[in-house]
């Protein structure tokens, strides 16, 4: 079973929920898809067993063969090629690796070569597997790393917890594409509500069932609960605002290992998700 943890707004507690949920589930696999800012392993601190370099295909030009016809420049929808001062220039970072330029070149002057864009690290935490995708700074897109990361899984009926990037764009879509359930982590604020609506729309577009975790909860009326009731979205957990929790998270401590209350809370969250999926 695959459970994605996402939020739209950043800093609502995706990594907190994903790390603690994975810790509360024996034999789980934790996947860090927030490849721009991967933080899961700051909590698990596993020794890395394997590191795989992720490579994409980018064009390289044989200037001697290039006759300056610019067909590649005109074809490239991503503006990754330019012909300036009798030289074809290639901007690797914004290339989407579609292969179009090499197809259209009439002079066979373009070839594709592998370029590293990041890595996937795999480690173990007790009986859990921790897989982190890490994009190289300066790269534009984390999508190839996420695609590669999912290929590393030998699931064998193990529960997978997928820690997604913030926002609602291509990397989030890639992360939740094949999941069974989306857990949306939010805060009881007006700002979070607007962003929650966006990711809820995205998950619904992909036909994913959703449940809500309200983090930093305080027992006053808030717009999130009204939205959930109105749209019939189950609230699976409310995690009370607690300054001490902020302090232990800041130090990279896993809450369910620090405090039995959180062990109970995250085990119940797991049961609640199972119940949702099976009904």
């Amino acid at each position, binding site marked *: 079973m695959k459970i994605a943890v996402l939020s*739209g*707004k*950043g*800093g*609502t507690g995706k*990594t907190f929920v994903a790390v603690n949920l994975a810790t509360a589930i024996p034999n789980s696999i934790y996947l860090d898809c927030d490849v*721009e*800012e991967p*933080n899961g392993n*700051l*909590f698990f601190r596993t020794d890395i067993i394997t590191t795989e370099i992720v490579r994409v295909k980018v064009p390289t030009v044989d200037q001697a063969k290039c006759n300056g016809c610019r067909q590649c420049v005109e*074809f490239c*929808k*991503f503006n990754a090629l330019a012909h300036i001062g009798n030289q074809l220039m290639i901007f690797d*970072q*914004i290339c*989407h*690796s*579609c*292969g*179009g330029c090499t*197809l*259209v070149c009439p002079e066979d002057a373009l070839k594709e070569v592998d370029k590293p864009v990041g890595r996937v690290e795999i480690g173990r935490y007790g009986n859990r597997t921790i897989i982190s995708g890490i*994009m190289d*700074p*300066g*790269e*534009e*897109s*984390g999508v190839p790393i996420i695609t590669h990361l999912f290929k590393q899984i030998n699931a064998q009926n193990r529960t997978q917890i997928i820690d997604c*990037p*913030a*926002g*609602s*764009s*291509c*990397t989030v*879509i890639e992360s939740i594409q094949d999941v069974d359930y989306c857990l949306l982590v939010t*805060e*009881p*604020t*007006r*700002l979070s509500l*607007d*962003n929650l609506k*966006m990711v809820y*729309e*995205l998950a619904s*577009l*992909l036909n994913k069932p959703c449940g809500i975790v309200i983090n*930093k909860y305080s027992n006053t009326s*808030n717009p999130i609960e009204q939205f959930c009731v109105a749209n019939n979205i189950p609230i699976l957990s409310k995690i009370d*605002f607690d*300054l001490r929790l*902020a*302090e232990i*998270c*800041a*130090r*990279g401590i896993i809450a369910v290992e620090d405090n039995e209350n959180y062990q109970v809370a995250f085990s119940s969250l797991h049961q609640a998700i199972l119940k949702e999926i099976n009904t």
Partner: protein
Amino acid sequence: MKQLLIISGKGGTGKTTLATAFIKLGQPSAFADCDVEAPNLHLLLEMPDLGKITDYYGMDKAGIDRDICVGCGLCATYCRFGAIKKQGNYYGIESIKCEGCGVCEYICPEKAITMEQVVSGKLKLYTTKDYIFSTARLRMGYGVSGKLVASVKKQLLDAVDQTVQTKEKHLVVIDGSPGIGCPVIASLSGVDMALIVTEPSVSGISDLKRLIQTAKIFKIALSVCINKYDIDRDNSNLIQQLCEDENIPMVGKIPFDTNAFEAAKNGRSVIDYNSGATEAIKQIWTNLIKQL
């Protein structure tokens, strides 16, 4: 004209809270929200629901004409994004996966494929006698946001060009997005300084380091401030040391303040509350103006 961008690496450290405070304190003539995947600045600024909305066209999406398709499958073979699937005797496009490269259109021997324009978001521009505000919202399922960020900035700068006479003294405040990928890189272009808002957690520090590395590649001048610095003073000291090593000015530290959370809950700016955080933010603003 000077452009100040606010970014953070890690999400939720307080970018929009600070952007709102700066806009209220400094009354800049122009500002923008480049977090098109989760835009919030308009909420904190309590913008009236006015503003000119325009459709944003991102990358085209491929479409296959079933009457012409002979089902050869060449398109599916050449598509690098897994966006073309066999559907019965023909092929169909999975729109959400299509990146709009046009390879399928090029390779199709029957000319059954055309690239179609699609609305991928909404741009919004407020023009009043006091300010210009540019923002946008990505359409869900339409992926790439870097190009939309570039459009938000272009819309802002074009409007400034048309309306503001003396540009020298003007300041533009831009609220950025989390991460270090394409939307952040798109927001970096042309800015005079990027203020990084970090927090004293292991995650905040790790994300800060990655963001500094990214900004260095694009040769952007940086400043750093720490939000909720008193949550973990040891980590705050580590950040201070990191900034000294990297030669990045530390422009201020904001204490943890329950008023800030109260303010966010009600969709208001912390600057409207009389609190410990407010004084620190005012000091940061003064320091930033000096830096700029």
